[in-house]
């Protein structure tokens, strides 16, 4: 794993919870939207917090796709779940919310899961195809 790959995984981990938090904060400012006035939903993008949240979620999608291009799905998903822990830590230390014992236990389990998966290889290595296989494929085509 190179620094670029670790930074990409860090991007996946950070962009999603921050984007969700910004959207949540913005939508609370906008207020409830009735199904009869769906067009108002399009205007919510003009709220700076909602707009910023969308930018962060686009960042999440870009880094997620990049991560999937060099690592297995079963590596990227648990490794990026550290975002749940980040969200709980923001709730406890920035928003001064109460974090219960069960939630701390959940944080410990998620962290252990991340530790397990990141200690192994990020990609399933497949043996290079033999020349005879290539010839067989060419003949089929």
């Amino acid at each position: 794993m190179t620094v670029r790959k670790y930074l990409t995984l860090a991007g996946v981990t950070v962009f999603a919870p921050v984007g969700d938090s910004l959207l949540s904060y913005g939508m609370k400012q906008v207020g409830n939207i009735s199904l009869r006035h769906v067009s108002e939903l399009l205007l919510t993008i003009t709220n700076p917090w909602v707009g910023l949240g969308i930018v962060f979620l686009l960042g999440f999608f870009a880094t997620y796709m990049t991560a999937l291009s060099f690592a297995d799905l079963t590596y990227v998903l648990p490794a990026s779940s550290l975002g749940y822990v980040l969200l709980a830590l923001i709730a406890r230390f920035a928003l001064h919310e109460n974090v219960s014992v069960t939630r701390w236990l959940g944080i410990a389990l998620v962290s252990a899961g991340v530790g397990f998966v990141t200690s192994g290889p990020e990609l399933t290595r497949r043996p290079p195809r033999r020349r005879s296989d290539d010839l067989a494929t060419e003949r089929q085509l």
Partner: protein
Amino acid sequence: MIRHAISNLNGWLAILAIVLSSSAGDVLLSRAMKQIGDVGPLRRKRGLSFVALLVLRNKFFLLGVGCMAISFYSLLFGLSWNDVSLVGPAAASLTFVANAIAAKFFLRERVDSRRWAAALFVAAGVVLMAF
């Protein structure tokens, strides 16, 4: 009583739909990106717009995005029938396990005991964090 049972059934059907469509979406997106290859060197060589076009024209990517849209609407359906405290963690944690199974069989990833443990630990942790 019957109304409560229907509400519960619809909630769990929505969770099942979220888990299946979200896992299918993740597998398809992963398949698309493996087909394209590591985008880091590719971006340096051919530019960002080339990579973006390559991704947007990949059929597995488009199918994956479609599955993600189904998953999103299933979530909205689930939230209209049951509490977010049930639908959110149940769908998120079951998706981790379903993804591990789907990746093993459809993407032929080597899911060893370390990766199974990671998926199960994260799934259990997500459930506990909802309380």
